């Protein structure tokens, strides 16, 4: 039997609170032990490992924070704050409630104990009064030589027979002087050697209460053996005028004590009380016979050492609250036992209930916070979506979101900024288009003076030489050439007009070069009806004439053929001039290149190429194929436009 005891200054509340905190502390100790063990088992030092772990956790938190939406952060923050407050409040209330309940329970147990003690005290006082009565009112007044005390004792007994088994007076030698009810002393019994007799003689003028024992003094025809508590005292007997010592014995019915102590419930979780003498010997216990039969153990020997008050003890693995009160006059101790396990079980249930309520509240809060944060974050999200649409290139983005003032203001500001940005971009595009148009105008303007100068020079020359018809033809062709060149300001003209323009140009040049070359213009069916940028063939022809025909050994020939290839319009200008090296042909279209020692700079070709590129973009433009002594083929590739407007947009879009 092991028992651990601890003196507790205040009953009940602190005791159970300490038990509750003890459980928490024990749990925390276990967690710490496990954590320490884990770190201890690792090869690295636990401290370093812990630091790394904390660092990783902080980094994860930061990463999570960066990745999380504003709604999530708002929800989590609100919930965390609310839950922390709620748990704090809940725990405070729970602890306050448990402490208060424990106080009440402990006070209730104390009150019950005090009440029982009062009853017991009253019972023992009545026994003592009875003994006093027997002594002072009966024994002391009668001379045994001449009178008997049987009647008085019997009257006294009859008046208290519920509480008494017998009242007896013995002489100093243990002889029976008188007894009530009337009985015969057993032959085998020597009262003078019994414990109650010796104690009475040892404590003159004092009353002595024995521990419960079987009354074995008197014969009983029914062979009854009754458990009694003996109250004995030394008395003076008068016999023939002389006094002699004797012993008055009042055997109390043990049932009287039992009636006082039984069926006392100290707490709803099942408490009981028992009575012990100063040595811890059990006087009354609700399960006394089980203890006597070794079927049950009680911590009575330890309890005898306890001073009055509340104590906590661990007995047979069970935590118990023990309340001790000393019974007056006897040295007996009334011991109340309240098992704490049952009370803590109730608290476990209460804690479980509180846990459920907290969990429910947490989720409810999380739910409400989600809704609230959604209400706050929806306008921000809408604004974010609009900005993303804008980033994706959408031009029709609505920044007017409804929400708090700041968000609406932000939306309006962004809308205003985007509107300003669109205006600025339109202005830039307009400026770019104007700039391109200016460049085209410049390129066109580079052709006209060049050609006009040469043609007029030829007309002058022919007129001066009387070749009127030829000059008329030339001037007519020139007039026709300019009319097509102007084309009412249109940039895109039919292929038929472009080829007509080339024909007039060739007519003029053939007259200038005295028919040193022939030219043939052909087109596939349908091609003349297509459209192209105007004045793209003439500069090619000009190059063919100046660089091909001027140096041709025999009769020069220029072939112009318009056809469709892979859906594109191709106008090919081939001459049988001296040609050029491939490297030179490849670089002729380079803006930075200027052919050394050559007549002309190739500016006509580049102009045509740039105009096509500016209008239609890549892969359209001019390509040159040439080899020395094998002539030159220049290809103009443009989109096959069926209407004059078809290609404009494409060019402008670039």
């Amino acid at each position, binding site marked *: 039997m092991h028992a651990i005891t601890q003196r507790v200054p205040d009953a009940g509340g602190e005791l159970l609170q300490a038990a509750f905190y003890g459980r928490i502390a024990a749990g925390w100790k276990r967690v710490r032990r496990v954590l320490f063990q884990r770190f201890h088992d690792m090869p690295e030092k636990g401290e370093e490992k812990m630091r790394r772990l904390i660092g990783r956790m902080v980094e994860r938190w930061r990463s999570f924070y960066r990745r999380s939406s504003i709604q999530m952060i708002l929800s989590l923050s609100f919930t965390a704050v609310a839950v922390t407050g709620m748990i704090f409040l809940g725990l405070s209330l729970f602890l306050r409630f448990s402490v208060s309940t424990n106080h009440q329970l402990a006070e209730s147990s104390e009150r019950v104990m005090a009440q029982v003690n009062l009853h017991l005290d009253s019972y023992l006082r009545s026994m003592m009064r009875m003994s006093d009565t027997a002594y002072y009112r009966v024994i002391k007044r009668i001379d045994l030589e001449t009178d008997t005390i049987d009647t008085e004792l019997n009257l006294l007994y009859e008046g208290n027979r519920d509480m008494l088994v017998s009242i007896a007076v013995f002489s100093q030698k243990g002889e029976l002087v008188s007894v009530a009810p009337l009985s015969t002393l057993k032959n085998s019994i020597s009262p003078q050697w019994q414990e109650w007799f010796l104690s009475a003689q040892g404590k003159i003028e004092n009353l002595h209460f024995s521990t419960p024992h079987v009354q074995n003094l008197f014969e009983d025809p029914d062979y009854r*053996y009754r458990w009694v508590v003996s109250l004995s005292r030394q008395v003076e007997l008068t016999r023939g005028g002389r006094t002699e010592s004797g012993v008055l014995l009042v055997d109390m019915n*043990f049932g009287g004590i039992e009636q006082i102590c039984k069926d006392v419930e100290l707490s709803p979780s099942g408490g009981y009380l028992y009575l012990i003498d100063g040595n811890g010997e059990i006087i009354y216990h609700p399960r006394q*016979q089980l203890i*006597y*039969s070794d079927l049950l153990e009680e911590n009575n020997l330890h309890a005898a050492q306890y001073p009055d008050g509340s104590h906590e003890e661990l007995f047979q693995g069970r935590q118990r609250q023990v309340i001790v009160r000393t019974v007056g006059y006897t040295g007996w101790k009334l011991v109340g036992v309240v098992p704490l396990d049952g009370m803590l079980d109730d608290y476990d*249930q209460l804690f*479980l*209930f509180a846990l459920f*309520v907290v969990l429910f509240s947490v989720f409810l809060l999380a739910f409400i916070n989600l809704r609230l944060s959604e209400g706050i974050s929806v306008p921000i999200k809408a604004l974010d979506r609009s900005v993303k649409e804008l980033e994706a290139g959408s031009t029709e983005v609505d920044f007017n979101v409804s929400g708090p003032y700041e968000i609406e203001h932000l939306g309006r500001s962004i809308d205003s900024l985007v509107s300003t940005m669109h205006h600025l971009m339109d202005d830039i595009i307009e400026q770019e288009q104007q700039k391109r148009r200016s460049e085209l105008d410049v390129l066109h303007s580079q052709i006209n003076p060049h050609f006009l100068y040469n043609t007029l020079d030829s007309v002058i020359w022919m007129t001066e030489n009387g070749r009127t018809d030829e000059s008329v033809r030339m001037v007519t062709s020139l007039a026709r050439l300019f009319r097509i060149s102007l084309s009412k300001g249109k940039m895109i003209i039919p292929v038929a007009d472009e080829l007509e323009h080339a024909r007039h140009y060739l007519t003029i040049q053939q007259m200038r070069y005295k028919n040193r070359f022939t030219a043939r213009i052909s087109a596939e069916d349908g091609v003349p009806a297509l459209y192209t940028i105007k004045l793209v063939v003439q500069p090619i022809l000009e190059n063919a004439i100046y660089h091909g025909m001027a140096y041709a050994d025999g009769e020069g020939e220029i072939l112009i053929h318009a056809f469709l290839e892979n859906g594109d319009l191709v106008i090919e200008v081939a001459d049988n001039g001296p040609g050029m090296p491939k490297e030179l042909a490849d670089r002729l279209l380079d803006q930075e290149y200027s052919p050394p020692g050559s007549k002309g700079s190739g500016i006509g070709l580049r102009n045509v190429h740039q105009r096509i590129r500016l209008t239609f973009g890549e892969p359209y433009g001019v390509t040159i194929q040439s080899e020395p002594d094998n002539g030159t083929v220049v290809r103009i590739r443009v989109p096959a436009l069926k209407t004059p407007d078809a290609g404009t947009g494409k060019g402008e879009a670039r």
Partner: protein
Amino acid sequence: MKRRHIFQMGVLSLFGMGVLLSMVAFDPPGLHRKQELLSLSVILRGADSASWPARQGMEQAAVDLGAELRFLALDRPNHAGEQSSLLAREVEGGADGIKSDMSASGAVACISADNAALGEALGRAAINGVPLGGTVLLLDSVPGSSGMAQRLSQAARILEENGRRAEALGIPDAHDLGEFLSERYRTDPPDAVVAFDSETLESAARLAREFEKPPLLYGMGGTNVVVSGLERGEIMAIASQNEFAAGYLAVEAAAQAARDAPQQAVEPLPFLISRQENMYDSNHEKLLFPVTR
């Protein structure tokens, strides 16, 4: 409503139900409901053979373990056939367990003192009062009972080993005991008589008062009559066991068996040999005069 919201509402509802359940679980009706009552039948060997302490022990165990006891007495004491029919009737009647105060083989548990040790102790007690070569009459009140036979044989062995003559006397019917013993006392009085159960011991003690020099009486028992005989010197020594514990343990074992709980080995009940001079010593007093409440 978005699927996420429906999910959240679902989880919220589940938590709500959890709270409701926990409120119910916090003080569920019937949480402190007592264990279902077991119905246990107790077959008494004689009309009133179970001592009051044994009954108290049984009733205490019944209260502690949630059982209801039914005491069944035999019309004819120790009649095996009647016991069998009672057993069969109780089984048919749906009794959860049957406790019999006879040591039957095949029982789930048998609560009894160590019969051999008990017989040996009584034999040794008888040696002191019987001179060498003296006769000790051993009363066999339940012929055929294995427990009784064990007590008797061990007592006989000890007596024989110590130079006393042991003589077993079978008494098939308790009512015939007086007649048997009177005849024997007159014709061939033994030096001592040993009775191995309280009923026989009481009868032997009553009979002894009729003789001027009755043989010394020893026996097993703890009834008030027996104790009184011990106190008056009519009985030299008695072996007594804790009847309260016997009753309690018997019902406990029966309840465990009925509830299919694992059976724990039951130690033999301890017993004490009490004499007039030590019968009021604390441990003897507690055994002979049980505090029954």
